């Protein structure tokens, strides 16, 4: 799994489950990415999204009692590509605001995450 698909990219990870955050962090690092986060609280995620230099982001939608949409909006404003990753939503149930945004269904394999992010960064996601 050590490749360089995300070499040099700064990827923001928003994920409230600690083990998943740890695991995704490991996966993305192993793909060459610099990881921003991981972060599980909405306000911290908004702060990072607004202030950090970020190439792309992987966003878990459900964050404890919150949902990740404000973060996505900040990223969208900053034209930073992002990929949703959720067990609750799929392409069909995603709010209309996010029509066309890439989304990964949980549980997602490491390869899928890397490819999705890479594609989003390339602008073809």
């Amino acid at each position, binding site marked *: 799994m050590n490749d360089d698909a995300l070499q040099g990219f700064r990827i923001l990870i928003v*994920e*409230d*489950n*600690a*083990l*998943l*955050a*740890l*695991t*995704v*962090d*490991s*996966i993305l690092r192993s793909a060459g990415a610099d990881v921003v986060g*991981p972060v*599980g*609280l909405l306000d911290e995620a908004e702060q990072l999204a607004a202030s950090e230099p970020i190439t792309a982001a992987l966003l878990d939608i*459900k964050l*404890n009692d919150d949902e990740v949409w404000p973060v996505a909006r900040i990223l969208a404003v900053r034209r930073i590509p992002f990929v949703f990753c959720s*067990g*609750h939503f799929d392409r069909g149930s995603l709010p209309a605001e996010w029509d066309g945004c890439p989304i990964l*269904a*949980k*549980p*997602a*394999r*490491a390869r899928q995450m890397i490819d999705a992010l890479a594609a989003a960064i390339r602008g073809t996601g």
Partner: protein
Amino acid sequence: MPRKDDPAPARGGRSAKPKPATRADSPADASADAPATRQKPPATRIVAIGASAGGLEALELFFDAMRADSGVAFVIVQHLSPDFRSVMDELLARRTRMSIRAVTTGTAVEPNVIYLRPAQQTLIIQQGVFVLKQEDKKTHLNFPIDAFLKSLARDQKDRAIAVILSGTGTDGTLGAAAIRDAGGIVLAQDPTTARFDSMPRSLIERNLASASAPPNALPRLLLRVLSGEAPPFAEEASEHSWSVDPERQIIQLLQRRCGADFGYYKKSTVGRRIRRRAEMAHLDDLAAYVEKLKQEPEEIDLLSKDLLIGVTSFFRDADAFSALSEKALPKIMAAMSPRRPVRVWVPGCATGEEAYSIAILLKEYARKERMELNAKVFATDIFGPALERAGRGVYDDSIVKALGPDLVERYFDANGSQYQVKPGLRRFVVFSPHNLLKDPPFTRMDLVSCRNLLIYFDDIAQRMVLMLFHFALDRNGILFLGPSEAISELADEFGVIDQQWRIFRKLRDVRLRESFRLLPSPSLRDDPALHHEPRSPVIAVAAAKARSAPAQRGLTKAYDAILDRFAPAGVLVSRDGTIFHVFGDAHRYLSVREGRFSNLITGVAIEDLRHTIGAGLERMRGYNTVPFVRQVRCRLAGEDEKAFKVTVERLNGSDWQDEDYCMVTFAEVAPPKKVGRRARAVEAEIESVEAVELYRERIRDLENELRATEENLQATIEEMETTNEELQATNEELMSTNEELQSTNEELNSVNEELLTVSAEHQRKIDELVEVTLDMNHLLKSTDIGVIYLDHDLRVRRLTPAIADTFNLLEQDIGRPIEHITARFHQPELFSWIKDVLAGGPACEHEISTSDRAFLLRILPYQLGGETAGVVIALIDITRRKNAEIQLRASETRLSTIVETAVDAIVVVDERGIVQSFNTSAERIFGYAAAEAIGSNVSILMPKALGRAHDDYISAYLRTGVGKVIGTGREVEGRRKDGALVHLDLALTEWSVEGRRYFTGIMRDITGRKEREQHIRLIMRELSHRTKNVLSVVQAMAWQTSRTTSDSEGFQERLSRRIDGLGRSIDLLVRREWEGVDLEELVRDQLSPFFDDAGSHLVLTGPPLTLKPNGAQDLGLVLHELATNASKYGSLSVPTGRVVVGWTVTAAPVALFQMSWREEGGPRIAVPTHAGFGGTVIKDMLAKAHKAVVGMDFPPEGLVWRLELEAHRIVRDVPEPEQRTARP
């Protein structure tokens, strides 16, 4: 002819040679007298009489007129019903002294005997002996008359005689032909006198009848036949010619059917009406119409109705009635008293209008004068149906116009457009049938009102009726006629009260006539049924004139001329001298004198003739028929004395019948010689000189004789005078007695008349009652309802057979008290109920039952004149109704219980959508009370949008029959009263009662189910998310584990342990419904797999704390890894080791969650040389995810692990800091 072999006749020693005997006997018979039959018994002549329908009457007339000793044997052959016992013998026995016998076989013929044919047997005669044969039943038609006549013709040859009387059909015709062929005689009843003329007519039409005559004239003909005279008998035949003028025939038919003699009605009127009826029947030939009348008696009724019904109305000619009221009533009414009623006669009252008008007039007069009216109006008419209508007194609304509203209101009860005379007026009027031309009149009338009736009568009848009215009226009584009717001949007897309106007053009491009965009119004169009517001379003369008038007028004139020229002057008088007719110049012998006029010839004859005529009439008394002739010298007015021959002669002739008339004729006796006047004078002088002496001597003798006689006479006269005085006294007494009797008699007469009319009314009432009773009996017999009528003493008066079902009652129990009867039901109160009703209580109803039946007992008072006179008990079997009621009630209760206890709402609406019923569940589901919902449109139970469409939907369904909902279930939304919507499962059915359709909706509230379904869907989705999250975690664990484990066994072992740990965390979360996890619980749970007895190995210190779900999962994983390490290398790897876990949450400003893990009592440890997945989790995971600070020390006595992070990242809420020590 083998005479020797002829069996000898049974009786009379008769010769076996009938023919010569007959010839020899004929002259003897011709005398028709007893002496002839005495000499030598001749062969008995046999007269066969054939009769059928109507024959009895004819037979009676025949034998009435037939002498009993004629020496003839009569054989009556009638058509007899086989099932009917004939009483002919009894009936005829009253008419004849001849013996009457039924024929048996072998009976020989005897003279002066009437033989009757027995029913069902064919009678023939052979050699003078009767033979009976059983009638052949196979042939439907039997002609017994023909059969007997044929045998008679064979047996008696030309001695056979047959008489055919009334009867239908043509039986007898063939037999008559046989008799005529054999040379015998056939007599037929004159068909016009036969009730059924077909049998005799058949003979006459075939020219078989030797002669025909009315039945009472037939014996005379028969005797002439027996006497050897051969028909035809010219005078009889012509007199009883059966072909008569059809109009006369019609009048005869009418008279026979309805008793009215239209011969006295004006010919023109009657003829016109007859022709009109004939035209209506499409018959232009009156003869054909006569045939129709004979066959259809109803047509006679219609014709008579046409002839009898005149125009009438109330107060016809109102001015006439006011004239009557003003000019005539005051006097009549003044004479009225409570004991003396005003008597009024209204003959020819038709339908009663005139009679009621008079009654109203009287009532009105009495009302104005404030008198109590006491009056009797006798209203009579010949025409029964009209009287019946008059008696009912019901008229249509045209009377309002005729009478004016006031009178109508006062005297009539309105009933729709009909008006009935009130009883108060009705009781003054008595209607009765009366034939003015035939029946005796009413008497002592104050008023006779007869308007427009006389105009229908001819002159004779008019005169007669007027005389009759004169007789009927009291002195000063009023006669009120129609405007075009006159009193003509009776003008002297009546004073005029009002000429224009024909109101007259009777002037004096004088009897104008002896009898007021008219003879049958000429049209009926030869109707034999009427022959016994007596004739009065006036009418006889008038009738004779009328009869001869048209045909013989010319001849009469010739006679008159001859009489004038040649006949002596004469006067026709009755035997008491009343003048009827004066012939020639007889007036010369009569002179009218001053004083009361006498119509006796002895009163008007001139002085010199009077005594002679008187003597002549005297002579004619008794049976002297020798004319009385006397010569009398007398001086006629303006003439010299002459000699006249006076003849008084008695007249006898058929026209005069038993009355005797006398003819008085006068003839001038011519002087004996024709000499000159002078010569005659000289002759007289000489004669006188010679005679004087002779005369003087004679005179002296006579004077002497006269003197002696005078003395004698004087004595006798004195004697006579005494006797006379005595007689006078006796006579006066008799006179007064007579007068008393007379008045009593008159009173009795009038009472009798009244009784007769009242009786006629009663008879009508009785007929009605009989009819009503029959109706009621039939009703009682046929009804299924048991009814008992009880009288006031509770005795059974009537009952219906149906009552036997419940009471032991039968017809024979009528009259027994009801209390003696046992009922088949036990009802002790029955009699008290009956007595309550009897005591005036209201009608009552009770239900009673026998063992197997139920009855409705109804007790009604029997009202009689406002009083309860008994009770009527009606028992109606209501078993079926009762059972049905019970079943219905049970079924209703069952259904309503179901409806009311049903969990589902059950609502019934009609075809307009109006709620009819609404059960408890419906109340609960919709929030409406049943009372609110019933009567409202069902749309109140529907969401607004649906409700609006509902009415259209129903009407479309009713129109097209196409509906989507009926019979199928579906889910719908309903609306509660509070506006909330409810989900309903609806099943709709349709039903109909009495043509009205209803819909029943059964609705189940499925709102709760819907919510649960929603919830489950939500949970399922959540479950799916959580599962996916957990799988993500598992995936991450697998990924992490695989990175740090080289062998697959170790991987499997570790991964499954970690999944197990994850499972425990999830268990806890699920137990707390994913809301959070108690920290202490989490710790115990995660550590529990690592030791058996946690109590001795685990020490927990910290406040109660709830972790967020993610925090619990994260921390759970960390605790799992710490415990795994401890069980491998640390304190949990030895039995004596233990773990101390402590936690706390620091106070603000930033609450920090601090936790420590310290191992004690384990083997000595060293700092680990390499970190696996467990290490990463323990040291880095929380640091990375939750910005935690994790510290680890490895002193030899055991691992110490510390954690500090912002409490809100993993803790749900921060409790008050509270030191808590885990229990040992």
